């Protein structure tokens, strides 16, 4: 009840949590920005005629999809600096290596989400019927024109729903960054709950998440509607 009798407390709590929301949004936005192109690259490798590239992509997807994101976060922040120090040691250097918390979190999320995006792209490309390629072939279209004018526009329509799923899941997954002590919105809420012995911060956190995912849901519906002009 403290928050209602002392409005100053509520304001400072909201300010604190909005600050945490910036971390949440930063991890979210940077992950989407870089995981999509990386995912496309891995998708191309996964579908490549080159067996080596295909193998690398397979192992990549197996690891990043097959192990917990939390473990990958911990490994990026605590494990990578140890390995880097070891490698530097081999060259006779005593230098240490540290990763900024935010950078470590963003890197781990990018690598993880790229694996999922790669598989979504692959599913989209492989769902285009062979007849589309054959029609393009008998019309004498080059493989470049076939991909960019025939295949890609149809893939885009099909992958909006699964990509949308990931975009929304990512908002909530960012809460995992607490394991490397990055102070996102949920981290701040939890601290406030302990400090003030009130569930109000959790309720506010839930509302914040719902606002973010609500806005995204609405935007994604609009994107889907853009593709409604054909079936």
């Amino acid at each position, binding site marked *: 009840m403290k928050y209602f009798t002392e409005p100053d407390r509520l304001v400072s709590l909201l300010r604190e949590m909005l600050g945490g929301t910036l971390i949440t949004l930063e991890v979210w936005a940077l992950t989407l920005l870089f995981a999509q192109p990386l995912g496309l690259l891995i998708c191309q490798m996964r579908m490549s005629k080159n067996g080596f590239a295909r193998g690398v992509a397979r192992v990549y997807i197996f690891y990043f999809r097959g192990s917990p994101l939390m473990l990958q976060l911990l490994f990026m922040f605590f494990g990578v600096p140890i390995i880097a120090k070891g490698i530097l040691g081999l060259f006779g250097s005593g230098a240490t290596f540290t990763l900024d918390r935010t950078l470590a979190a963003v890197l781990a999320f990018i690598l993880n989400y790229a694996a999922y995006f790669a598989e979504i792209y692959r599913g989209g490309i492989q769902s285009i*019927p062979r*007849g*589309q390629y*054959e*029609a393009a*072939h*008998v*019309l*004498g*279209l*080059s493989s470049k*024109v076939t991909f960019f*004018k*025939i295949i890609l*526009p*149809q893939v885009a*329509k099909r992958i909006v729903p699964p990509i949308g799923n990931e975009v929304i899941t990512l908002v909530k997954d960012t809460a995992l960054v607490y394991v490397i002590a990055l102070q996102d919105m949920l981290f701040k809420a939890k601290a406030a709950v302990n400090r003030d012995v009130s569930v109000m911060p959790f309720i506010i956190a839930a509302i914040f998440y719902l606002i973010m995912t609500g806005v995204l849901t609405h935007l994604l519906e609009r994107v889907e509607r853009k593709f409604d*002009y*054909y*079936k």
Partner: protein
Amino acid sequence: MLSAVNIHKRFGRLEVLKGVDLSVNKGDVVAIIGPSGSGKSTLLRCINLLEEADEGSLMIDGEYLFRVENGKIIYPEPAEKHRIRKKLGLVFQEFHLFPHLSVMQNLTLAPMQDENADKEAIEENCRNLLKKVGLLDKAKNYPFELSGGQKQRVAIARAMALNPEILCFDEPTSALDPELTGEVLRTIKQLAEEHMTMIVVTHEMGFAGEVAKEVVFMDDGVIVERGTPDEVLRNPSQQRTRDFMSKLLSI
């Protein structure tokens, strides 16, 4: 105009084409008939380079589109191959229109890729083609808004938009409801009357008899019999052809 010699095609251990010869003269319509799995569609796919023949050769207008030497398929250099390949058009059983493009865009996309394309002339030509197949009023519609028969007529117009010298049809009415086959067959017949050179794989015997100059009966990867529609459809000389025709009539 077109001459395919000794075409063989194997899928793994299954030999689908066992040495097929086919020649088509300018302005002729050749109908290929035969039971399912006889290799008719595969022959058409080999001619259109959707499959690579394992043996044989194909000449269009006196120029090789491919020939197989020592088990290796040899094509002319890419630009030449592309030029010769463009003399052929193919209409599929399942239409394969591009769903994200309007009817007009389906027609114009391929001709517009030419560097020296005259945009207005292409659009004019495509409008004329749509008019010819009776679908000019659908130019702005998308494929999902059309009936099967309309889709197939658009597909025919799309193939014609590249001015092919030979138009191939792979069972053009087999995916259509019976009441829609007529409009597609009429369109093909109209092209025949304009002396378009055509190879038509079909199960429509009435149509084959009416439009084709030559009927080819295929079974089990070989050509069993060929001749005028009267010879092949009404008085077949081979037992296998007679069996096939009697099966059709007894249904």
